[in-house]
């Protein structure tokens, strides 16, 4: 439905949405949506104008990778790279191929992340955006490779890197190959760090498991979107382990800020502007101490 607002963006090199997916986003009708948090009925037109944030209670709905791109970067500035990489089924894991095909059809994406070069209010960046609708945003070989390619492009072009995450963790269906993507991406971040290039991580709802415990937590500046669940182990696992109830707001963005794990918590409306200001400060600072 965001497409209606932003027109048909030229950057979309991936397939357009299916009818099924439109229905998923707006389950109640094409006209209005019920807020997951305050149960208010919101007109979709209003919800879209408000960047999929509830105008009543400020609840942030989850948002697709394409819509996230549309609200974060300058129109028509996206140049995707690393397209021709597809997940295989190296373990011959039950139902994996079918799940991949379903996720592709549902999201119009080839994988749980898209990467490319783009501009944010004129500032050139390399950007990667994950999509929770693609198998829970899980990291398998392709996500690991694309994150690494984005990092390498940053090093090569010396453009700042922005990664916007949403993930359930490592992709179970790729077993240890998926776990090793944590090592691969973290090693690549080390090279980016050594090259002295700015890396901003934006963790959105939810970001957990192997993605939190690798590249997402290794940025120079970490932004958490308002209300996002950000965790290593999910709340259900913790509850089962310790067998007591969890504190109010546990593992939410605000909780992480309080415990010193993120630099700031931003509402969706503030992200593009804040990114611009961070990029500006870093650009002014370039080469003063060379």
């Amino acid at each position, binding site marked *: 439905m965001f497409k209606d607002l932003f027109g048909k963006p030229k950057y979309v090199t991936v397939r357009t949405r299916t009818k099924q997916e439109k229905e998923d986003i707006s389950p109640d009708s094409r006209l209005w949506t019920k807020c997951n948090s305050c149960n208010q009925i919101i007109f979709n037109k209003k919800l879209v104008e408000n960047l999929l944030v509830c105008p009543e209670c400020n609840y942030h709905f989850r948002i697709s990778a394409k819509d996230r791109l549309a609200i974060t970067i300058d129109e028509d500035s996206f140049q995707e790279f690393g397209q021709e990489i597809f997940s295989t*089924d190296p*373990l011959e894991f039950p139902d994996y191929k079918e799940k991949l095909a379903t996720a592709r059809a549902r999201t119009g994406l080839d994988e749980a992340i898209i990467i490319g070069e783009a501009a944010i209010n004129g500032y050139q960046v390399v950007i990667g955006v994950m999509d929770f609708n693609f198998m829970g945003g899980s990291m398998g070989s392709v996500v690991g490779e694309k994150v690494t390619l984005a990092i390498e492009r940053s090093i090569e072009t010396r453009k700042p890197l922005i990664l916007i995450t949403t993930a359930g963790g490592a992709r179970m269906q*790729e077993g240890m190959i998926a776990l090793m993507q944590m090592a691969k991406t973290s090693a690549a971040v080390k090279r980016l760090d050594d090259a002295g290039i700015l890396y901003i991580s934006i963790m959105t709802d939810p970001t957990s498991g192997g993605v939190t*415990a690798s590249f997402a937590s290794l940025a120079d500046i970490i932004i958490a979107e308002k209300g996002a669940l950000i*965790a290593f*182990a999910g709340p259900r696992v913790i509850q089962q382990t310790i067998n007591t109830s969890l504190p109010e707001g546990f593992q939410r963005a605000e909780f992480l800020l309080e415990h010193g794990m993120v630099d700031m918590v931003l509402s969706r409306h503030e992200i593009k502007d804040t990114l611009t200001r961070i990029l500006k400060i870093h650009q002014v600072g370039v080469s003063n101490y060379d």
Partner: protein
Amino acid sequence: MTNNILDFEKPLLELSAKIKELQSFMDEKGLDLSEELMKLKERAAKLQREIYASLNTMQIIQIARHPNRPTARDYINYIFDEFIELHGDRKFSDDKALIGGIGLIDNQPFTFLGHQKGKTTKENLSRNFGMAHPEGYRKALRLMKDAEKFKRPILSLINTPGAYPGIGAEERGQAEAIAKNLMEMSALKVPVIVVVTGEGGSGGALGIGLGDRIMMLEYSYYSVSTPEACAAILWKDVEKAAEAAEALKITAKALKGLGIIDRIIKEPVGGAHQNPEEATMLLKKAVLEEYASLSKLSPDELINQRYMKYRNLGVYNNDWNDVLEGEILKEEVE
């Protein structure tokens, strides 16, 4: 010991009891039944070979989790000639589930890291069943940086069900601690030798597991998630753990086939818990062999080789249609 007999070990133990019985009967009566005895012993050896040749993944996990399986402390005691444990992350506390220190193996200095499980319930409670908090990973990083400063190779032994999923662990940045270790370990200027000795539980294992050589004991496992959790998440049915265990490809043999690990270290017949001394000696031999080859590399070569080892990890295809054909890498997995 008697409390910890695995199901598939029972027929073997019954047979060896019979052998003992016959032996003492012979001694007592002064009879020569050595032919019978020999036959029984042959049968026992054959049975053992058969059982251990056809273990399924859940049975291997049982051996990996065996309470008498050698722990980090056992390996230290057997393979180090000299060892001093070092404590604390200098930030919050000392994690008893992940221990570390410095020592000598055959006169070669090593920095040691390892998850520490207990053998009794009481000991396990104090060791948190080998499940480390962020402090454990931060202590490990401190000791690794120290190893780098003094040009000591690092030996890291993995044996954990996973990093601890608790309130304090989350509050203090379990994810950040593991991520930071991965980032820093990728560029350490000294050799890092990793051995999974029992359970290799996901990120909690990997948090001290990025290295130049990754080895696994024959009956250990290394997995993105426990089969129980995998079955619960994917199929909403914990009863399907055995199915998940096979599907996840988590044994040493399967992971060697997938190119995730470099080497399998043989265990004594019946598993490391049957003969800890021999098990530790086999590990020592493998570690020293790998160190001998790594020590020939310059720091730059070492770091580059390590980087490329991980850079190249991943299986993907450039054509979606090939994915649907589904024949990719079939041989390699076998």
